[in-house]
């Protein structure tokens, strides 16, 4: 028999897209569910639910993670960035712009994760090679198989970012 048949919800404070939030959640609730169901941040998608597809990618303290594998408790005190936090003042992020221009999205389920994986890459390598881009996106699956356009979009965003920097 379970020692804790009914674990109590706890208060979990963290920062989402720059805003302080405190949610009431079970410690083992998935960060993905907290984002989607409690905070209505439905840009983060659920694909496989087992850390294989990257649809639920978010940045946690700047690190790319699969939010389906993060228990809410572990997000306590962290800065979480979701796809909703990327555009600023109604203007697309440079990666969002490039994805739009290059046709880097079809059904759109993988797109938020792809873009956050690309943000994670460009934070670390401002001038990535094509191989580095492919590797950085290797944990993100696209079932519409639009990889070429996605990789092109990231490469173009990197070029534009270097130019404006």
């Amino acid at each position: 028999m379970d020692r804790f048949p009914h674990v109590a919800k706890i208060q979990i404070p963290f920062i989402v897209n720059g805003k302080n939030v405190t949610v009431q959640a079970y410690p083992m609730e998935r960060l993905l569910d907290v984002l989607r169901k409690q905070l209505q941040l439905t840009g983060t998608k659920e694909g496989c639910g087992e850390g294989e597809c990257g649809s639920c990618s978010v940045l946690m303290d700047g690190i790319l993670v699969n939010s389906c594998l993060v228990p809410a408790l572990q997000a306590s005190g962290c800065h979480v960035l979701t796809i909703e936090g990327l555009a600023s003042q109604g203007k697309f992020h440079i990666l969002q712009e490039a994805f739009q221009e290059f046709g880097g999205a079809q059904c759109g389920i993988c797109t938020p994760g792809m873009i956050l994986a690309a943000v994670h890459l460009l934070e670390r390598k401002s001038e990535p090679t094509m191989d580095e881009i492919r590797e950085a996106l290797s944990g993100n699956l696209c079932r519409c198989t639009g990889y070429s356009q996605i990789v092109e979009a990231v490469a173009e965003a990197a070029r534009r970012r270097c130019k404006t920097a």
Partner: protein
Amino acid sequence: MRSNPAAFQLLTPGSLAAVVHLLADEPGEWTPMAGGTDLMVQYAAGKLPARNLVNICNLPELRGIETTPGEIRIGAGCTYTEIANHPTIRSEFPLLRHAAHWTGGIANQNRGTIGGNIVNASPAADSLPALLVYEAELILVSVRGERRLPYENFHTGYKKTLLAPDELIRDVCLSRPGVQSFSYARKVGARNAQAISKVCMAAMGCMNGGVIEDVRIALGSVAPIPLRLKQTEHSLRGQAIGPELLLETKKSVAAEIRPIDDIRSSARYRSTVAGNLVVEFLTRLSAEPSKAARVCSAVLLEWNRMRADEAADSILPCCGSRAWAQRMAAMRPFEAESALLAAARDIWVNLERSDWLEAFRAHPRIGESRNSSLAQANPYPATPQSVKWSADEQRDVANAELAVRTALANANREYESRFERVFIVCATGKSASEMLEILRRRLQNDPETEWLEAAEQQRQITEIRLRKWLEG
């Protein structure tokens, strides 16, 4: 069927002492969770047997990679990203670096920990064959104290380990190699990224006098536990690598492994691929030079480990440009001497002229001792080592006739007034009169040609000095 989160407890005790107390108070009741890349998958599928989890993610006592002269201690809570990026692991433990890079995709490498990979005890885990080959040791802690045990004994059966219910892995320790052996790792899976291996291998070996002097081979996904192929290794030692040995080795590998059919592959496929991987490794090993020829000198290993400023100071006598020395230090670690020599060349030719000039200034005039009154009055950025090398290089000049030395002194003055810097020539193996001849010829050069000729001479000097420096 998805798990009900209300049925699972997750606590953060906050310190290692508090965690081991919790584990000791209710042995077997609590399951530690770090990055959650295995446990959360079972949880999502409704297959996590544990109900009470203790959060050890970011526990400071489990983080960090500590390097001592003899070994490297990897905190069990270090992620694969941290492991793959660590300079000592990159230079001295390439098998572990490769494995860290293969484990899941980037997001899983950012969260998954080496301790978690060991305790999860999957026979398909990518990093475990590397730990077997490096003969890792584990430090386990509990309220009873700590114990250190060889990793190779840790797995006792499928998903069974020596970890007691009240224990936690704190560190993974690897002895640092004195000599860089040839190492080879390969993973065979449905795709390169984010795939669980069908078979993976880590292997290391060295040749001496045309035979295998030492060899270690470990495979994943071919037995209930990650497997070191001790019998095969034994039969390989002392043998020359040829077609017959490779054929025998395939049989020996097949006899030693115990692969199964499962969703990812079949026993037959795994057995064939395991044999092929070992043969691929041996074929590459046979093309390697003998151990004596590929020693990564003790000097280079030590230099790879220094602080950047110490490393730059240490190599500065080889070439007196500080920019060169700093860039060399920044390019560490070097796995082989050939890579060091190649980098020395590349960095040198791409330096600014002011950096070239700084290197030239570290040399005394040809035929002039460093202790002359001029050197005293106008100290060059030389080091005691470079002064000694300069004296060795110019040995022939010191013994030359007075007339030649006087002519050299005059030509030096002429060179300095024309080009406004000291004359640089690679003096090793050249007599005083040869150098005089070269100096007179170069006085006819236009300034641009002379810059390049001087720089090429400095490059040759640097290379000769680097070879001496590597000998210690």
